[in-house]
């Protein structure tokens, strides 16, 4: 089965890297994956989206058609991409955002991703790693070994501890009940 994930936010928030890390963990876990992104010419600011497709079989078309998972870290991205979802899609948003009309609250995981990165981990720039930890806990995608492998390949040497802390803080944002509800099997 093809599982389509979209990560969205503002350029500089690291949503592309979050999507790459999920793809990297997928390779470590022996899955097929295609990762891609779309962004404007600016390096910072501007709407940014990245996509990861996971499957146990060969992936033909390389772009997301209707995602079953959406991460949104800005209101602009949420309002835009909430309209392009597969039925029953899981939507993870930062708790500072307002759930737009038409989106069922039941499918939304509203989590203090940015605040946790800033206050608990101590660095706002780890928000994308916090998000990856939360995504993995909620969807139950990878074991710890594959997830850590995915992260390790994309962080500077010496920042491992900070990033493990961010992953764990992210995972703690999702309750076991929520994880049971949103779990996906590929």
């Amino acid at each position, binding site marked *: 089965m093809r599982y389509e994930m979209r990560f969205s936010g503002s350029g500089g928030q690291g949503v592309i890297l979050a999507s790459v890390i999920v793809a990297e963990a997928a390779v470590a876990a022996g899955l097929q994956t295609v990762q891609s992104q779309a962004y404007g010419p600016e390096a910072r600011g501007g709407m940014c989206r990245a996509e990861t497709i996971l499957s146990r079989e060969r992936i033909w078309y390389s*772009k997301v058609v209707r995602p079953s998972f959406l991460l949104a870290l800005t209101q602009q991205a949420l309002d835009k991409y909430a309209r392009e979802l597969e039925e029953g899609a899981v939507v993870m948003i930062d708790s500072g955002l307002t759930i737009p009309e038409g989106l069922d609250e039941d499918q939304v995981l509203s989590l203090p991703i940015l605040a946790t990165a800033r206050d608990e981990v101590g660095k706002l720039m780890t928000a994308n790693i916090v998000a990856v930890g939360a995504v993995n806990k909620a969807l139950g995608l990878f074991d710890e070994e594959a997830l850590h492998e995915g992260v390790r390949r994309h962080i500077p040497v010496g920042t491992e501890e900070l990033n493990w802390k961010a992953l764990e803080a992210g995972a703690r944002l999702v309750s076991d009940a929520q994880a049971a509800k949103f779990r996906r099997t590929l």
Partner: protein
Amino acid sequence: MPEKKAVLMQGNEACVEGAIAAGMRFYAGYPITPSTEIAEQCAVRLPQVGGKFIQMEDELGSMAAVLGASVTGVKAMTATSGPGFSLKQENIGYGCLAEIPCVVVDVQRTGPSTGLPTSPAQGDYMQARWGTHGDHPVIALSPSSVQETYTLIIRAFNLSEKYRTPVIFLMDEIVGHMREGVVLPSPAELIINKRHISYRDGANKQCYFVPEGAYVPAMKPFGQGERYNITGLAHDVSGFPTGSNAVAGDLFTRLMEKIDHNLDDIVRVEEFMLDDADTAVVCFGGTARAAMSAVLEARAAGMKVGMFRPITVWPFPAAQLRARLAGLKRVLMVEHNYGQMLLEVQRVAAEKLPVGFLGRIDGTVISPADILKKLREMEA
């Protein structure tokens, strides 16, 4: 033997790793989206393997540096996107005439001029053939996956060395910026063409001397052994300019024939579910991903559709397509431009059967659903 593990790699990254495996040891470029990762990765990787990376002042200088490095005996590459590809054309022509092997990567983006820098397109297809002036030989290859980018760039270097000509590696943003799991072949599995070098110290010292029955002169590394001349003017076997129409005519003809008389060696296509098909979707590069998906969906709906994909996009695989026409009722060309390869397909097929077209020039990607819709319209 243990099964090899896949690694996650971006198309642009696979281009660099494949090129290094092919023996590329010199890169000169001027970074431009969506090819920038190629320059970045070359800057990191080339010093590790004893190679040289130079960021030049512009695209013109980059192309000149690549030609200069290559004549000294080093396999050389540059990468760019549309705006830079335009600037490189003058020196690409010089490489064609002076017969200097090199690989020019063009990761295509949308629009004329600076257009849409981060969006995919395939609008440089005709430019790859006719971007530089005068009748000249061209080989252009186009990959459709990250895995194929790795193996096909090696082939680009092999053909470039074998035929002593610049080879255009025509990527697009779809493949360049996509990450996929790649299983890297071991060096023993790769076929790498070494340069055919001759120091010409024997009886025949002429640097452009071509033996009877051959099309390509052996190459003498510049700066080693006896001095010789390289020019963009028509030249005789000594490398010096000639005013003789007969000599110039022979040279220009040989340059074309060295490609035209070796099409079997140069041209490669992928045929997907075509054997019992009545409809062929023709496409190249990253567009193939939507096309293969559409073919599978069409098959599931009972339609007999297959895909014909030129891997060698220049010379266009006319004979291979012609050989497929007998069983077909219609052809659909799908490409991210206003209709460029379409002209080649029409040249081959239009008198025999209907040729439909699906193009896109707004910077978005053609989806399997778009292709399926067009296929249904054509069948109705």
